[in-house]
Each structure stands twice: as C-alpha cells, then as structure tokens.
C-alpha cells in the first residue's frame, strides 16, 4: 500500500506526535508498505529517507504558547506537489485541527483520508471560533483515529462524529539493548526512576520515602533518577543527609540515554499515584527487560498483567514499596523470571501490533473512497 503521512510539527524538535509518526512509519515500512512522510524541518536537518522536508517551520503564537508550524501558500504548494507525486492509496494526516501541514493536506487533497487526533483540548471555545475555518478540511476525512479515550472525547464533544481509539505503541526494538551507564548498576544494587520529579502524580516522593528504609538496610544500594524538575535541589533536600550521595539525579535525558538508564538498574520503579492512562514509561522499561515494581493503579495492573510481569505494591504506600523492592533485590531468579515475562507481555503493545490496527483502518477507508489526488483548484476556501 502506498501511504502518505503528514506531520504538523517540526521534525527536528522532539515531541510526542513526531515520535508517534516516526514509529508508525517505520513499523509500516517493516511490514513492506511504501511510506512517505512530509514534515516541517530545517533545511540542514538530516532526515530519514522516507521523510520529505516541507521547509522551515515558523514560530507563531498559538493557543497561548509559541508553536513551530508550517502554513502559508508556499507550504500549500509543497504539500500539493508531494501528494501529486506520491500517488498514495491513503493519506494519513496527524492533528488536522492544528494550523499546519495536515490541515493544508486535507484542504488540497481528495480521496481516502485518515486522520489521527492526539490531543485532548480542554478549552472548547477556541474550537467554536476556529471550527468554521477548518470544517471544509475536516469534512473530507473518511476515517478517524484517536490515540486515547480523552482525545476521542474531545473530538466527539467539539467536532462531532466518532473515532476509533488506537493507543500509542512501544518501539520495543529500540529498548531491547543498550550499554549501561559507566559504573552502573554496581555491586550494591540500583533502583531506577524516570519521569517529572516535581509532579506528585508521578510518585517520586513515595520512592524517596521507601529509599529511606531501603538505603539504611542495604549500604550499597543506589537510586538513579532521570527526569526534568523546576528545582532539582529540592529532591535531594527530601533525602536524609546520610543517604544523599547515593541518590543520583541525571536531569532530563535524551532518548538514547533513557534506554541506557533502563539498562543501568536492577529494579525499575513506577510509583505513580494516578493520572496514567497507559504508562508508556513502564511499558518501555518492560521492553528493556528490567524487573519492575509498580504501584497498583489500573493502568499498571493492566500492562503488567495483574502482577505476572512485574511486582505491584499498594499505591502510595512507601513501606509496601520498600518490602516489594527489597524482595526483588534479594531474589535473582525472581528478577530473571519477571524480566522474561515483561518482555513477553509488552509485545502486545509493540508498534508492529499498533501498525496492523492502523492498517485495518486504511483498508476500510480505501474500500469506500477513491485514490488520493489533488483537487483541481486546490480548494476554494469557505
């Protein structure tokens, strides 16, 4: 199948949508499909062979912050040429409600169009004003995908119609192997954490409390923490002075280093107290094969198969976490078993599985529509 995918945000800026598109495109290519992505990108950015640059994205105020987007008639003509040359069976636009390439692609194209909605927008009145502007484009979409229940709700409430929910996948392949950071995990054992340090729902405070107990029991045990924080010093202040030199803060890390962090610890901890719909970080840790101890929230229970693929502890209970982590640190055989079980369980969430779900949407849409083409006029707007 010939598939054209549009990315609304600059390819060289890290972001969830860009990552989603990259993983989806690569999974589809692995399945033997012919995929082309068009994305805003700086001219000197090295692009993967399947990506066409649409020129530099321009920083503009949008929705109260500054976004880097592609708009204007030059972008229109680039998108039109890309569609014309591509001869796509299906056009897959991401976030067509954002003023960028995806919306332009909807405008100039006709035929089989699939759209994926990523965001849950709480401010509905914006859409009241802007919907008439985007309506013409959005009405051409034949099949709609939402990446989460929240994104689907936004769509249903603000734009109308419905969407199938296909959650993000995990690029398990990327997490399978990595070199541990130098000196890790060390002989005394190490526990890892990834996520925002100052977001209480990520639960770092529970882990720090548990470490007060664990660190005293086990003189060599260290804590490896990666993630952004407004004030990292605040985290160390919450650790007793005697244990402070055994808590290592890495700050925000790159994608590659994230994988290395996962391979640098004996036990990975997901102490979230709520607010996770899927637990992508936990799934990534599963893909890396690091034994997991996670709080007993709905999302983790599901992804860890009720405790088969990782230890669960009572949500928010530092004592229970300390006991569960302690058991794991003492039991090498149990760790190996959990690691194997986690790798097996996370395969259900691999991008190859997600890509097949997306593909079935393409196939359905193609049945009821024509090949993708550019409209004669480029679409008079109104």
């Amino acid at each position, binding site marked *: 199948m010939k598939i054209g995918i549009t990315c609304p945000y600059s390819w060289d800026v890290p972001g969830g949508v860009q990552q989603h598109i990259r993983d989806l495109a690569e999974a589809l290519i692995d399945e033997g499909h012919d995929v082309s992505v068009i994305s805003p990108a700086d001219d000197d950015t090295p692009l993967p062979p399947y990506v066409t640059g649409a020129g530099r994205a*321009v920083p*503009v*105020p*949008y*929705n*109260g912050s500054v976004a880097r*987007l*592609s*708009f*204007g*008639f*030059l*972008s*229109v003509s680039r998108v039109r040429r890309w569609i014309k040359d591509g001869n796509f069976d299906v056009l897959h636009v991401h976030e067509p409600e*954002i*003023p*960028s*390439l995806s*919306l*332009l692609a*909807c*405008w100039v194209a006709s035929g089989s169009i699939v759209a994926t909605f990523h965001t849950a927008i709480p401010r509905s*009145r*914006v859409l009241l*004003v*802007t919907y*008439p*502007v*985007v309506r*013409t*484009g959005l009405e051409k979409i034949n099949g709609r995908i939402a990446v989460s229940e929240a994104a689907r709700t936004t769509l249903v409430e603000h734009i109308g119609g419905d969407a199938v929910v296909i959650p993000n996948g995990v690029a398990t392949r990327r997490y399978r192997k990595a070199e541990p950071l130098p000196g890790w995990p060390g002989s005394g054992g190490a526990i890892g954490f990834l996520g925002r340090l100052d977001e209480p729902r990520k639960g770092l405070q529970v882990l720090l409390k548990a470490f007060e107990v664990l660190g005293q029991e086990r003189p060599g045990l260290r804590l490896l923490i990666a993630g952004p924080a407004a004030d990292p010093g605040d985290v160390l202040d919450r650790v007793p002075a005697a244990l402070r030199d055994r808590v290592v803060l890495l700050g925000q890390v790159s994608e590659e280093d994230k994988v290395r962090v996962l391979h640098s610890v004996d036990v990975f901890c997901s102490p979230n107290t709520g607010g996770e719909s899927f637990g992508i970080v936990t799934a990534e840790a599963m893909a890396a094969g690091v034994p997991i101890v996670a709080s007993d929230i709905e999302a983790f229970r599901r992804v860890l198969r009720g405790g088969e693929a990782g230890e669960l502890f009572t949500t928010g209970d530092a004592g229970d976490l300390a006991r569960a982590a302690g058991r794991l640190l003492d039991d090498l055989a149990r760790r190996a078993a959990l690691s194997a079980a986690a790798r097996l369980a996370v395969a259900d969430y691999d991008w190859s599985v997600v890509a097949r779900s997306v593909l079935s949407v393409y196939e359905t849409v193609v049945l009821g529509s024509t090949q993708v083409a550019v409209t004669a006029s480029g679409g*008079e*707007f*109104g």
Partner: protein
Amino acid sequence: MITDIVIVIAAALFIGVYVSWRAGRIDRLHARVDMAQAALDATLLRRSSVALELATSGLLDPATSLLLASAVHGTRQGGAGGMGPPGGDSDRPRDLAESDLTRALRAAFSQPDFRASIDGKEGADELLAEVEAAAHQVFLARKFYNDVVAATREARHRPLARVLRLSGRARAPEFFEMDDSLVAENTGAPLGR
C-alpha cells in the same frame, strides 16, 4: 492689623484655589485616561474584527486562517492585566493576547511574496489595507493612552497631591505595553510589499 488679616485670608484663599485647581487637574487627567482607554479599546476591537474578517475571507490558506482566528479568539478572551478586563474569563492577560495577534498577523504578512499570492483576488487589497490601517490605529491609540497615563501618574506623584490625597479613591492608571508593530524588527520595511 487689618492688613495682616487680609493677607492671611488672601493667602488661605489663594492656597485653597490652588489646591482645588490641582485636584481638578488630576481629576481631568483621570477623565482623559478613561477616554484614551476607551479609544484604545475600540481600536483593539476593530483590529480583532478586521483580522477575523481576513481569517474567514477565504483569501488565505486554512492554516494561516486558523492561526489568525485563534489569535483573535485569544484577544476576545483576554482578561485581567494591562487595561483590565474587556469581559474576559481567561487566564491570559490582555496585553499578551493582543501581542499574540500582532505576531500572528506579522507571521502571515511576512511570508515571502505574500502580496503576490493574493494579488487580484476579489476584495484582497481593500481587506489588507483595512488590517494595516487598524493595526496602525492601535499603535497610535496606545501611544496616546500611554502619554496621558504618564502625565497622570506624574501629577499624582507630586508631594502636594500625595499629602493631600488629591486623587481621591481613583486608582493609578496602568501603562499598556504590547507588541503592536506589523513591521519585522530586522528589516525595518513594511511587510509583504
């Protein structure tokens, strides 16, 4: 003796008249601030509505239209801060929201060959001229408003005015700062020409 009394009465009268004149001046300045604010408000609203007209005119591509429309929406929502609420329920201060609209317009107008791309379309020239005129009026109105605010604040700040509280309960007017130039900083040339 009598001349002393006359001098004292005359002095008292003179001081009274002077103080009341100063109080009256401060009062008049506050009234002028109100008028200048109403004028500024009107030009901002006018600019918003012309920008919205441009956004929905079909002259632009949908992405640019959407950018403008959401920036206009932001100004309608603009709340506390700057000159105070025009009826907003938003968390974004008005000065920032209006500056966002300026930047959105500037981003639209600063595309290379922007003029050429819409040249000859029905009503394009008139609408663009209107947007530019409205933006220029905002620039003027804001300048006048900030001038009278400066004069008022200075008058209120004089020792006599402060000691005798000549400004009464009227609150000190605030300057209104925003990005209001459709001209790109680096070129100095009007955009899109």
